């Protein structure tokens, strides 16, 4: 199993170094326009935050997997974990805002020792869409997690899981040896309690990230291929496929540079820039909370240590009036969310 950039003490573990590469580039073919310049062409600068609809909470960077494209740089060697005290602060916000979606992510969120307590408490808040981003393999990793499908069902959790391909080779290459088999087993366990079944309300969606230096194809067409392949080979059902573009940060940036694909990938993102996607990017209606309670416009900004542009910096000081209308913090990685059909945690935005 590979180690995280942090454990390897890689220069790219430092967000400042990542931003330096993104801003100054290592380009031989000219200079990339800045994202700010690009969106200014369509009068979208500054991009303003709208009313909060989605609260995304990263409950820790600890994970049982070390995926080669992970923008969190998560892994078993990461110890950052949200405390119950911070979770209580998050719960207070959930109860007092009109946010319709709660989105728990990590790492593997289930590895946080307070995860189940938090799900039980949060599910009482009447959230319309309560998402847990499960990597699937955690369900089969240890006996203590085997009942997660039943636990999710009990609290009407919407399960969203990564699955880069319907073949073993491509999946294991991106997410680690053995991940494909374990994921298939976990999907069967989820199906067995009703998750992902066509007529069942227990939502099971899959996330597709390209397994290399290329952009995702049409989401609907990929979903059709995934459904056909998983049904025929394993009798597995799921609801929707979200296609998400890999953003050039953290371990994916490390891969791009090492494989000498960085320059071409950045050009591909800029060429695929779609002004129509800007209006629907997730950062305008989302707040991302880090394991230590700080606020960011999105999970990517969190990993780049680019906090919200507001007087309010921490969940304990949450103030809707001060946060709404703030200018969204942007850098070159934002091209990733505006390429092609656009990309968000809920898949393409167009």
């Amino acid at each position, binding site marked *: 199993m590979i180690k995280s950039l942090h454990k390897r003490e890689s220069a790219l573990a430092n967000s400042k170094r990542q931003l330096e590469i993104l801003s100054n580039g290592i380009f031989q073919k000219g200079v990339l326009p800045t994202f700010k310049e690009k969106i200014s062409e369509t009068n979208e600068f500054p991009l303003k935050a709208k009313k909060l609809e989605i609260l995304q909470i990263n409950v820790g960077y600890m994970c049982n997997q070390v995926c080669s494209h992970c923008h969190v740089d998560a892994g078993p060697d990461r110890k950052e974990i949200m405390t119950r005290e911070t979770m209580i602060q998050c719960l207070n916000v959930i109860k007092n805002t009109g946010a319709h979606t709660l989105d728990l992510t990590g790492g593997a969120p289930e590895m946080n020792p307070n995860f189940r307590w938090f799900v039980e408490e949060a599910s009482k808040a009447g959230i319309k869409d309560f998402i847990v981003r499960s990597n699937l393999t955690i369900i089969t990793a240890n006996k203590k997690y085997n009942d997660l499908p039943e636990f999710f069902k009990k609290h009407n959790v919407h399960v969203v899981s990564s699955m880069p391909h*319907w073949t073993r*080779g491509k999946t294991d290459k991106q997410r680690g040896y053995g991940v494909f088999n374990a994921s298939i087993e976990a999907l069967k366990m989820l199906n067995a309690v009703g998750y992902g079944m066509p007529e069942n309300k227990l939502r099971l969606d899959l996330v597709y990230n*390209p397994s*290399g230096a*290329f952009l995702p*194809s*049409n989401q609907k*067409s990929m979903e059709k291929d995934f459904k056909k392949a998983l049904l025929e080979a394993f009798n597995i059902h799921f609801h929707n496929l979200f296609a998400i573009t890999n953003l050039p940060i953290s371990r994916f940036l490390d891969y791009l540079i090492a494989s000498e694909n960085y320059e071409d990938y950045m050009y591909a993102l800029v060429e695929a820039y779609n002004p129509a996607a800007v209006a629907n990017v997730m950062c305008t209606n989302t707040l991302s909370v880090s394991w230590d309670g700080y606020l960011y416009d999105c999970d990517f900004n969190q990993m780049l240590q680019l906090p919200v542009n507001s007087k309010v910096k921490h969940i304990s000081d949450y103030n809707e009036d001060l946060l709404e209308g703030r200018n969204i913090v942007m850098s070159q990685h934002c091209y990733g969310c505006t390429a092609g059909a656009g990309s968000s945690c809920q898949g393409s935005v167009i």
Partner: protein
Amino acid sequence: MQKTYYDPADLKKFGKISEWNEELGAKFFDYYGKVFEEGALTEREKSLIALAVSHTIQCPYCIDAYTGDGLQRGITKEEMMEALHVAAAIRGGASLVHGVQMMNKVNKLDM
């Protein structure tokens, strides 16, 4: 001066072909776009056909374009290579089948 006949960067300039004849260029790209839309065949199947044909006509631009397109569509390297062997088989077979003509000619002329 570029010292090779093919420059990968030229692929991105393909659309400029229309600049010297807008009407015919537009007709071609309309047709091209329509051809690759889902019909009786899926876009994925069409991408694989395009990849195989690209190798048969030995077009480096097309090979780059449809290898990338295939990856985006989730086409595996095994599927790509199989498609390529279909192209190679047809191409090889096309030479070999002319052997019948050769055999006919030999049979006619030979005592």
